[in-house]
């Protein structure tokens, strides 16, 4: 999106709406709202050029809280709606707000298709591994065996790993963030916004009410350094206290190593390449699970490609250049006509 710089840039809080924010106190959703406001400010997006389109769910109330155009639509369909909006007006900065239920349960089909088409949208995927708004049923990302309102004896479903689904659907941009670090989230959202095509940002979000501490092993202060691998393109994959631990490739698998131990040096440590077409390492990074591995956070994949809306308008432009007709009148009068007198 190209934004015309205006004289007096808006501050993050200028993007806030006059509506009272109605999420539960302590809900992870607040962090995303803050991060988004920062990015809009940083990107200097005029309020009227930004559009937030959401489905139904707690997270989908987002559009009310931001003073841009907004559409709080129906359950599961925001990507389809946003596709229409973006095609009509590629000048708009269109953000889609959705939950793990909204995007991956009822909205799963639009998710995979918007990805393969690579429509130029930013998708904020609030993953609290639960249906929040309907009071706590398991979702397609709920861990197998978990007890919820609709699984009193534990779920038997194997959950999606959203990043893997993104890559399996030809997705070009996938990032993962936690709701406990607004600054990092904002930096990732910035990259998402600057990527052309569908940028999926999965937010590991805490639902204090129905799935409290679901991401606690990843986000809690004590374990954070050991359990989070913050990825940056071109940087080695280091983590842990004093960045002493790192990720090494061993055959076709990843492993955790400690610098200085068993002869491990910086040369052994993988350097993150978010821009490579190859999905192999991206998939392996997405798949890293505690306790063996830290959780990969940041922009995992960010590959250049033309966006659907660009291609669509290019095709129209091309047809207009080689138009068989110059006007509807010409079309209407073309071919076999006959006169009645």
């Amino acid at each position, binding site marked *: 999106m190209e934004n015309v710089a205006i004289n007096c840039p808006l501050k993050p809080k200028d993007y806030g709406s006059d*509506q009272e924010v109605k999420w539960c106190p302590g809900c992870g959703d607040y962090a995303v709202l803050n991060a988004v406001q920062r990015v809009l400010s940083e990107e200097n997006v*005029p*309020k*009227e*050029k930004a*559009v937030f*389109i959401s489905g*139904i769910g707690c997270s989908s109330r987002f*559009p*009310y809280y931001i*003073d*841009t*155009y*907004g*559409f*709080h*639509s*129906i359950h599961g*369909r925001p990507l*389809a*709606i*946003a*596709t*229409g*909006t*973006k*095609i*009509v*007006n590629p*000048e*708009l900065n269109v953000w889609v707000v959705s939950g793990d239920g909204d995007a991956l349960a009822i909205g799963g*089909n*639009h998710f995979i*298709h918007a990805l393969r088409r690579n429509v130029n949208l930013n998708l904020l995927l609030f993953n609290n591994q639960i249906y929040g708004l309907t009071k706590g049923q398991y979702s397609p990302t709920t861990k197998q065996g978990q007890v919820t309102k609709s699984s009193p004896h534990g779920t038997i479903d194997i959950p999606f790993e959203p990043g893997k689904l993104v890559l399996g659907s030809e997705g070009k941009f996938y990032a993962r963030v936690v709701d406990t670090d607004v600054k990092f989230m904002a930096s990732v959202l910035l990259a998402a916004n600057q990527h052309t095509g569908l940028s999926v940002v999965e937010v590991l979000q805490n639902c204090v009410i129905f799935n409290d501490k679901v991401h606690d092993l990843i986000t809690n202060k004590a374990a954070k350094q050991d359990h989070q691998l913050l990825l940056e393109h071109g940087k080695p994959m280091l983590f842990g206290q004093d960045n002493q631990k790192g990720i090494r490739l061993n055959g076709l698998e990843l492993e955790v190593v400690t610098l200085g131990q068993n002869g491990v040096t910086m040369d052994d440590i993988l350097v993150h390449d978010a821009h490579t077409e190859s999905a192999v390492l991206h998939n392996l990074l997405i798949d890293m699970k505690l306790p063996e591995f830290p959780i990969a956070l940041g922009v995992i994949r960010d590959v250049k490609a033309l966006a659907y809306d660009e291609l*669509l308008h290019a*095709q*129209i432009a091309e*047809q*207009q250049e*080689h*138009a*068989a*007709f110059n*006007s*509807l*009148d010409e*079309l*209407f*009068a073309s*071919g*076999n*006509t*006959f*006169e*009645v*007198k």
Partner: protein
Amino acid sequence: MESVVIEKAVIKFAGDSGDGMQLIGSLFTNTAVNRGNQIATFPDFPSEIRAPQGTVAGVSGFQIHFGSSGVHSPGDAPDVLVAMNPAALKANLSKLKSACTIIVDADTFGKRDLEKAGFDSNPLEGNELADYNLITAPITSMTKLSVAELGLDNKSAVRCKNMFTLGMVYWLFSNPLEPTIDFFNAKFSKKPELAKANINALQAGYNYALTIEAVTSSYTVLPASKKPGIYKNLTGNQATAWGLMAAAKKANRDLFLGTYPITPATDILHELTKHKWSGVKIFQAEDEIAGICSAIGASFAGDVAVTTTSGPGMALKTEAIGLAVMTELPLVIVNVQRGGPSTGLPTKTEQSDLNQALYGRNGECPLVVLAASTPGDCFQWAFEAVRIAIEHMTPVILLSESYLGNGAEPWQVKSIQDLPVIEAPVLNGDKDNWQPYEHATDKLIRKWVVPGMQGTQHRIGGLEKEEGSGAVSHDPENHQKMVNIRKEKVARVANYIPEQRYKGKDAKKLLVVGWGGQFGILLGAVSELQEEGKDIAFTNFNYIHPLPTNTAEVFSKFDRIVVCELNDGQFASYLTTNFPQFTFERYNKIKGQPFTISELKNRFNELLEK
């Protein structure tokens, strides 16, 4: 709009002298006679005994005109042309009316064949046949495959291709195969492998047409008294596409189509997608839900947004239609109806999705319903659907029918300049006092304010909205108020449409009521009775919801009213709900087929005599 219907069709079989056209011509004739049709045929052979193969001179033809009544000649231009090779196509091309169906054997369009027939380039590849309903089938090769199991030599195998073709034509006209099968079994009782070969090919052709859901514009509606002007044959689906384009032009906005293919609506997509030069944005979605949702997103962004489908696809769109109602956005939803319920009879015509259009949503969810009545006037009703959607900020369902979508008729070429301007309710003035869900007092519409406009950021959505501000509201009084506004907004459309007209000003006894696409046939039947001096009148509805304001007045002029429709009485029930003071008799048919003039006349005569 005045037109009559020919319940008959003209088929021309054309091929090389050796292609067996006369045989399939007479087999078709026999089957038609068996079914009680009137027929008239015209076989024409090349005059030379052995005309050069593959040339125009060598073309052998057989034309048959058949129908339930009024068949007095072998007919003029064919409705369906079968061309077994390029020469046969060449020979008949000048005589065709546009939008007729052409079946060609793609296997015979090699370079040599084209040259022999005198074609410079392959007509199947260029734009030359764009006006026709072209069915290109690899007839020769499929015929060979269909008889492969019998181990015939190549020549004998290929010879069966006329039967494959006949099978396809049988499918198009719902003819039974049995008489022809019986014929071969009798004829080749001594050579069962030959009988089998012909029957195999016949069945294979029939199944092929069924498999690809082949349809034809076989029912042709001809204008009885045309206004002077330039005309062009159009199918209903083409006319719908063009009407949409014209309306977008007159609304000074781009057209957006979000859709998923489904018979018999897909041709609207096929037509529109050819015209990207006009700026139309086409989104072939992953399913019907994404189709309509993308259109809603497009409408939100300010385009003239359309989604097209047929019954089962319509079912999938109903949740999103509710969203369009709630957000008070313009949207046109075209349903080219087919036989139901469920997957039903995908290639057959029916008017049984009316209830779904009127009532098929959760909650109190009113919208405008229109219906087209002839292939050509699909243009006008598509245009009107866009006009109402935009000027009244509401979704509009436009009901077409398989019979219209695939049917064709001469359409008087319109010029864009002569069409009315469509005025979108944009916000021109005071942004400060504007509110997103503030409703104008006359039409009760809100303004269409689209993203990109500075200073008017707002949010819309599917939860109940506070009148004015558009904030989410759980307030009981507000809900009642908004339900009333949405209802009244649609009701008031009646103030912006013409009155209902009817034909038969002097009649008193019987009013025939139709809606949508049976117009031509009903008019034909009533006209004939009127000519016979019967006390009968006719009115056909295009504005289904709301109804024209003078509807009750029209009904009140008659002793009896009979509502004729291709369903189980859905419009009649709807009229009863609205006008319980009248008795609506019903004449319904649910056979996947249009009415016939004779059955209608019989019924009307009975009613007139009662």
